[in-house]
């Protein structure tokens, strides 16, 4: 996934990744990444039909575009 992200970023487009495998993602050095702690593959954006939580995670990830850059790092936040 990070390989895809890095390829898009190299074309001059700002990207942000939502990952639930932070160690694996960090090894691949993503330009920007958010790990919502407590979720697993299959529901990386939280519980089904929990619109408020899913929107919070989407918005927090997009706001990493505006934050101080930390290329290569995965930012972990708790949503549980």
């Amino acid at each position, binding site marked *: 996934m990070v390989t895809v992200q*890095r390829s898009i970023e190299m074309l001059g487009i700002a990207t942000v990744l939502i990952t639930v495998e932070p160690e694996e993602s960090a090894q691949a050095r993503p330009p920007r990444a958010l790990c919502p702690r407590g979720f*697993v593959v299959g529901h990386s954006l939280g519980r089904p039909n929990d619109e408020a939580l899913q929107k919070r995670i989407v918005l927090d990830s997009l706001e990493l575009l505006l934050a101080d850059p930390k290329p290569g790092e995965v930012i972990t936040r708790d949503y549980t």
Partner: protein
Amino acid sequence: MEKPLELSRYCVPFTPFKRKLEESLVCLVSTAGVRAKSDKPFEKEGDNSFRRIGGNLSASDLAVDDSHYDHGCIDQDVNCVFPIDRLRSLARETRIGGLTEAHFSMGFSQALRELRESTIPQLARAVSSARPDAVLLTGG
């Protein structure tokens, strides 16, 4: 002739984001095997293609082809891995400018060389053609 240089994984590509979120078009890109229900399914045991997902579609128009993670959640709500309805809701609230006319997903594959040399460059160009201001990527 020498091979072109490849980016070391210790080097991180970085494009500064200079816009406001509320003026930005966002494109969703996933590796979770998401597609329009009307589109050709992914081969679950290995598929190096990707699918274009129309920006007018909702999560209920989408299917997921995968046999490598638990589907208990996405069977109820594809937004769990592909938050297209949530982005649209944020656009209605003017928290983001909108969504691009196309989004994209790859399926499961372990043919890493073909992915790296063919699928991913094609996908990145297709994403660029959708002219997003920002791209949000999700795995499973």
